[in-house]
């Protein structure tokens, strides 16, 4: 039916695919199969997927095709993204597929229920291609902490794809999926987006239900879209967003102007604030250059660039590494071998419940998870609570005030998403503090509950790797990010002569074809 070959098909954006599906120029089965073929072709190199859900994805695709073919009211009622496939971070529970959270402790576990966002994907009839790799329980910035091996960056297979959502970002960057779901606790959507040249959006805390996202740090976690274009993220957020009675922390007001904002991008007369504390020292030169380039483009497009200061951001990383592990220590207590998942019996000595729990957790959790459980247990302990957890909560308030003051001066704030481009696999694995510093620019948004969007800002001069630009808006102003993001994206693509990902090296069987690039 289609005149596009598979290689061209998988490079279309979700919005373009949706248009072709609606116009019946292509079927969902063709699209879904093209992606499954691509996964089969390249995922041996990338390792973005922990589970491929081919049968169910094709069944959903066939159902959408049948509805479209039959026409009538049911076809009319199909969601715009019906038939557009999607990958799901393996932290989000799904009926019919295993959910591991990247951990041995959940190996082979099947959820008896669907996360709310999964119910919404099913309602929109989006075929789910599979579950993507992540740092164990979303703890990490490189996906190297997955119990199932690291995911590799499609731009350079020796480099990390970011984390914790490296699988989702790499899958989208490697054209293994047009869209993916991620979760962002301290940057796990945005930083992988930055280092893989993709778009990642952390919505306002509460904009998307967390029900069914295995909790890492409840007050910081947020599910959000991963895509190749700003518009695609807006489309996906409208699918997954909205109030959920199963999540008390979900917001009641609808976010239904996101797509419109992405389509009518405009920055004329807007004030865009550079956060003094989030660039310069500690940021790679190539990152700074691309960042300044984006500022110039926004200025040319009619925005006013101002500088704001957020003096308390210097405490953000420290406070984050108290609040997050505290919540982790409690959220992960349920993994004890009693009701589900791994159960390890002690090799010798008495068979008590405490010893079974201990043996299970010792064998089932990786080092980074244990490190954070220990940190959090300590921070919440009697006698230390006020000094650690209590003080960190005060810092959180100060960060919110910094943002309030900044947003009094600017409509949107801007910074590099991460201080560096993708580092080499193994480079920071033995240095947790260096790894933690990767999230220095993304963490403040989680601490304040505000939305943050990362979009590709070009390639760093020194290593030719993607740089991410982060936009931040006040809580509930997600639409503003899509509006500004769409403008910046189009200006940059105009400069590059096409999407940044077109510059990525070829993968899989196509990498053996002469030239290898498209």
């Amino acid at each position, binding site marked *: 039916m289609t005149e596009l070959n598979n290689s061209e098909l998988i490079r279309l954006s979700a919005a373009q695919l949706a248009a072709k599906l609606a116009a019946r120029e292509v079927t969902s089965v063709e699209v879904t199969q093209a992606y499954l073929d691509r996964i089969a072709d390249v995922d041996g190199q990338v390792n973005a997927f922990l589970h491929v859900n081919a049968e169910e994805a094709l069944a959903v695709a066939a159902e959408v095709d049948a509805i479209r073919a039959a026409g009538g009211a049911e076809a009319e009622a199909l969601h715009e993204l019906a038939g557009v496939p999607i990958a799901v971070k393996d932290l989000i*529970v799904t009926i019919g597929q295993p959910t591991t959270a990247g951990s041995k402790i959940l190996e082979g576990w099947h959820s008896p229920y669907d996360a709310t966002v999964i119910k919404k994907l099913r309602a929109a009839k989006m075929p789910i291609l599979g579950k993507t790799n992540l740092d164990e329980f979303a703890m990490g910035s490189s996906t190297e902490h997955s119990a199932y091996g690291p995911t590799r960056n499609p731009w350079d297979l020796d480099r990390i794809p970011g984390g914790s959502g490296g699988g989702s970002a790499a899958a989208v960057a490697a054209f293994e999926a047009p869209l993916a779901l991620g979760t962002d606790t301290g940057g796990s959507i945005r930083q992988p987006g930055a280092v893989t040249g993709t778009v990642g959006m952390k919505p306002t805390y509460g904009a998307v239900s967390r029900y069914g996202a295995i909790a890492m740090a409840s007050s910081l976690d947020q599910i959000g879209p991963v895509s190749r274009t700003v518009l695609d993220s807006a489309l996906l957020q409208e699918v997954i967003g909205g109030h959920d009675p199963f999540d*008390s922390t979900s917001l009641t007001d609808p976010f239904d102007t996101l797509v419109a904002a992405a389509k009518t991008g405009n920055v004329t007369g807007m004030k865009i604030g550079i956060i003094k504390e989030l660039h310069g020292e500690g940021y790679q030169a190539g990152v700074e250059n691309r960042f300044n380039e984006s500022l110039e483009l926004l200025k040319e497009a009619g925005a006013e660039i101002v500088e704001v200061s957020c003096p308390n951001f210097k405490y953000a990383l420290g406070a984050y590494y108290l609040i997050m592990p505290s919540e982790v220590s*409690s959220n992960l*207590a349920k*993994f004890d071998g009693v009701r589900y998942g791994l159960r390890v019996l002690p090799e010798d000595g008495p068979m008590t419940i405490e010893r079974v729990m201990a043996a299970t957790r010792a064998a089932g959790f990786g080092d980074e998870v244990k490190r954070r459980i220990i940190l959090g247990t300590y921070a919440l302990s*009697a006698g230390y609570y006020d000094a650690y957890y209590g003080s960190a909560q005060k810092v959180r308030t100060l960060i919110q005030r910094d943002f309030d003051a900044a947003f009094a001066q600017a409509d949107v704030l801007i910074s590099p998403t991460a201080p560096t481009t993708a580092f080499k696999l193994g480079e920071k694995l033995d240095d947790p503090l260096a790894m933690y510093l990767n999230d220095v620019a993304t963490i403040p948004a989680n601490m304040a509950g505000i939305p943050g969007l990362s979009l590709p800002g070009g390639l760093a001069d020194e290593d030719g790797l993607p740089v991410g630009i982060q936009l931040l808006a006040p809580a509930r102003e997600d639409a503003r990010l899509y509006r500004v993001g769409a403008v910046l994206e189009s200006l940059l693509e105009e400069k590059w002569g096409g999407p940044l990902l077109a510059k990525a090296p070829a993968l899989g069987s196509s990498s053996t074809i002469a030239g290898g690039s498209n």
Partner: protein
Amino acid sequence: MSTDATLSFEEAMEKYDPVLGFEVHVELNTKTKMFSSAPNVFGDEPNTNVNEVDLGMPGVLPVVNRTAVESSIKIGLALNCKIAEYCRFARKNYFYPDTPKNFQTSQYDEPIAYDGYLDIELSDGTVFRVEIERAHMEEDAGKLTHMGGATGRIQGADYSLVDYNRSGVPLVEIVTKPIEGAGSRAPELAKAYVAAVREIVKNLGVSDAKMERGNVRCDANVSLRPHGRERFGIRSETKNVNSLRAVEHAVRYEIQRHAAVLDSGEPVIQETRHWHEDTRTTTSGRAKSDADDYRYFPEPDLVPVLASREWVEELRATLPEPPAARRKRLQADWGYSDLEFRDVVNAGVMDSIEETIAAGANASVARKWWMGEIVGRAKTADVDPSELGVTPETIVELNKLVEGGKINNKMASQVLDGVLAGEGTPAEIVEKRGLAVVSDDGPLLEAIDAALAAQPDVAEKIRSGKLQAIGAIVGGVMKATRGQADAGRVKELILERLGVEG
């Protein structure tokens, strides 16, 4: 299980002053659980009233049950508490297999209700004020059954079974301030306090309030200090004392045990104690110190509970008549004297009498049965009167048999024994035991003639109009019929026989 030394209660009281404290857990009778939509139902097949939230599956989130919050506010108001406008839940972190998340979602330093009191009336009418520290919301844990091993406890068990049906059932924990000055009335006060709390939550309709089902559970804290000393002694906490009588006995026992420990010069160990109904003693549980570290922190998955003043006042307006006021009203309705009513209350049969009246008996009949027949039997059987097995319907039926002249009071008492022995309904027992009052006038007339002949002078008196003399003849007839005659009918026949207008 070692037996602890005890002092006599009297000697303990001579030397020491008891200080009490209670934590009463009330299970709410909401349709669904505290944080999930699973049914809150007692007694079903294990692990059937559960969903992913109650099982602590990965990814689940709690949602607060609004009705449970309302019930908690009502309890707070009934305990004369202040209601917090803003309060939060917290996580109490500890690993135990009856707690599926390995933390209990509870309230820590922000209870929904605080600073209340309850006036407790003791058996002699003395009113004792118990100060309420707080009433807070939390979720119940699952139920563990330890298989194998001698003690039925987790230590030494071969394996344990867990039923999560109870996991997530809404609880309100009511905590008193230290109760000082009860002296030798401490055991009685303990029982009366728990009875009052139970009465209040039952009256509010927020709990089924059945202690035998664990709807109301009491942890009793006891410490002793020498008379005149201000500082509290070291306390023990006797867990899950689950009947009113057990509360009284447990407090009494702990006072006697503490006194013996203190007398021996040893310090009391701060620990939990397990109550044993069979031996009416406690045994050592787990050492408990104030330093138990539950790593409480605010529950990040829940938003704060906001109780607007308007809402609280709306709820206050729906509160039913408080039990103390109810007692005043019932006494007036029933026409009992102060003494009669206090006896009824102290015997623990006020509710039973109310139910019996509702079933169709009048107030004096209901009192006669409960106080005259049932309380004594309950005492002999060592159970609460309401637990003896007599239903209001039984009493109404028995009374109808008496009033209808089928049986007399003496026989009715025998029929009651039959009912309690499981012989059937009162009517069936009358039949089986052949207890019916003799109603065939033939044999009666013979007995009457014999009695009149035996006492001609009395017969003459009656003939001449001295009707009060009839008792002697009736007595003779009853004696001759071994009490099986209906005295009323006997009277009628005597008058008829003598040709006297009655």
